[in-house]
């Protein structure tokens, strides 16, 4: 049924920390590994060893160059940084990919808010992928059905797995702990606290999809202008290079050699 459920009691989703994602792509690889053998059809590849390989992935990591604004709201090029940006389905509350589906294959679960595709009912028209602002859905070229993040629905409730593995594959594999899984409808959950403390944001709120997944913005780098303290604790690399302050044996050597001048 492609009508959206009334407000689900649970809203399972991810909180992704853009401050500490290192862009290693391990979550994407583990996602592909788990989901190609899990829920529904496998995630096929076309010409995987050919000149123009392509394939279905449910999670992809883009990297952006971010030039933070200074206190005056101007971009500060000296503070430029790379922000690695993992992107998968955001399991939106107002998911347009669900309501556009002509067959009822695309649906949002009322019990936990997960957006899924019933692959046996999917005709592969591709309209849900067009309706998604985030590019979270990819048509599998082999199976001709739409594939998307299932929030590892076949892991998180799976009692055959040890309890610590009952998390989405991307969360479980992240070596930097940049991805967190939990109930965002519960204000006391770890993920909800994280969102409050770090000012978690929605992607493209102007599209009106009310995504469940939240992104934590990068923290200002300490010691740079972005921390708001002016130049007080700025560390000058040039100064450090000019006046080495070595201690111990190297310090003694430095002093001794300096005397020879």
């Amino acid at each position, binding site marked *: 049924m*492609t009508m959206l459920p009334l407000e689900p009691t649970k809203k399972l989703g991810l909180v992704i920390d*853009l401050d500490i994602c290192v862009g290693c792509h391990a979550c994407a690889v583990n996602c592909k590994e788990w989901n190609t053998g899990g829920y529904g059809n496998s995630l096929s590849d076309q010409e995987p060893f050919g000149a*123009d*390989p*392509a*394939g*279905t*992935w449910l999670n*992809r*990591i*883009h*990297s*952006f*160059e*971010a*030039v*933070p*604004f200074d206190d005056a709201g101007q*971009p500060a090029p000296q503070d430029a940084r*790379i*922000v690695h940006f993992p*992107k998968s389905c955001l399991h939106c509350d107002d998911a*347009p990919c*669900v*309501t*556009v*589906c*002509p*067959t*009822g*294959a695309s649906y949002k679960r009322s019990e936990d808010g997960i957006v899924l595709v019933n692959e046996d*009912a*999917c*005709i*592969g*028209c*591709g*309209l849900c*992928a*067009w*309706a*998604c*602002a*985030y*590019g979270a859905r*990819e*048509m599998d070229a082999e*199976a*001709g*059905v739409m594939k998307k993040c299932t929030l590892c629905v076949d892991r998180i409730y799976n009692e055959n797995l040890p309890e610590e593995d009952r998390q989405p594959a991307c969360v479980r594999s992240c070596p930097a702990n940049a991805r967190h899984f939990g109930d965002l409808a519960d204000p006391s959950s770890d993920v909800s606290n994280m969102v409050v403390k770090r000012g978690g944001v*929605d*992607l*493209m*709120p*102007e*599209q*009106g999809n009310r995504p469940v997944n939240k*992104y934590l*913005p*990068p923290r200002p780098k300490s010691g740079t202008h972005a921390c708001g303290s002016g130049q007080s604790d700025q560390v000058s690399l040039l100064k450090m290079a000019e006046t080495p302050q070595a201690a111990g044996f190297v310090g003694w050597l430095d002093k001794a050699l300096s005397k020879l001048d």
Partner: protein
Amino acid sequence: MHPAKSVIFFTTISGAGFGLIALLALTAGMGHISWDKSWELAAVGLGLSISGLISSVFHLGNPQRAWRAVTQWQSSWLSREGVLAVMTCGLFGLWVLAGMAGYVLPNMLGYVVAGLCVLTVFATAMIYAQLRPVPRWHTWLTPASYLGFSLSSGMLLMVMLHPHYNGMAGGALGCLAIAWTVKVLWWMRAAKADVRSGGSDTATATGLAGYADVRLFEKPHMTKNYLMKEMVFAVGRKHMQKLRLIALVLGAAAPAAFLGFSLIAGGNVLVMVFAVAAHLAGLFVERWLFFAEAEHVVSLYYGR
């Protein structure tokens, strides 16, 4: 957006078919034609609509399940389009068959069928107009232009099938003018409706709005994927102005000239066949551009 041939054929040809069915149904509703004598006109309308609908099935990944698409009419414009198309063709076909078999059904049916045709074409257009991530489509001008072209192509077909009704040729000229005026308005709006016009940009797409100036540093993958093939399609925009001119010449100027010639010559089927062919060719170009010109906000993640 990727312009799939089957969808271009579907939207133009079934649009023309429903335009013709609506006009035939109105004419029959007013008692000017009866189906025992004019069933072949109805067959042309049904043939166009149904061949368009069948072609739309070819772009599906699993066409054998296409029947499921009529189930979600409560929420989905694509489903509504399917339901309305089946209802329209079914009701019209039954009416014509009854007429051929000598049963006279109430003329009221003509207005019902014409209304259903309008709703069907409207639903087709809403499949695209509803999509907020595609700013060029997300406007009431999209259904207006689909309805306009359905009317103009239906009207040209009517004149082709009834070449001696001079009054209708004048009406067809008027419909051409209306349809292309709406399309030119759509194009004028499109010039301002780029991928950022809805307030989305790379910063809102990454959640970094207000924090930093953002641009793509590295894509997630080296070769193309489904999203890029389907939604980051950029070929059309390169030749946009030339293609618009071709669409206008084929779709507007040529049929208008043929219509004028037919009016002076007192009605000529062959000339009208050329008029219809030129108009449909122009609409193929217009519809190809409709898809190719449209930008999707997902391209913000790919450096646009």
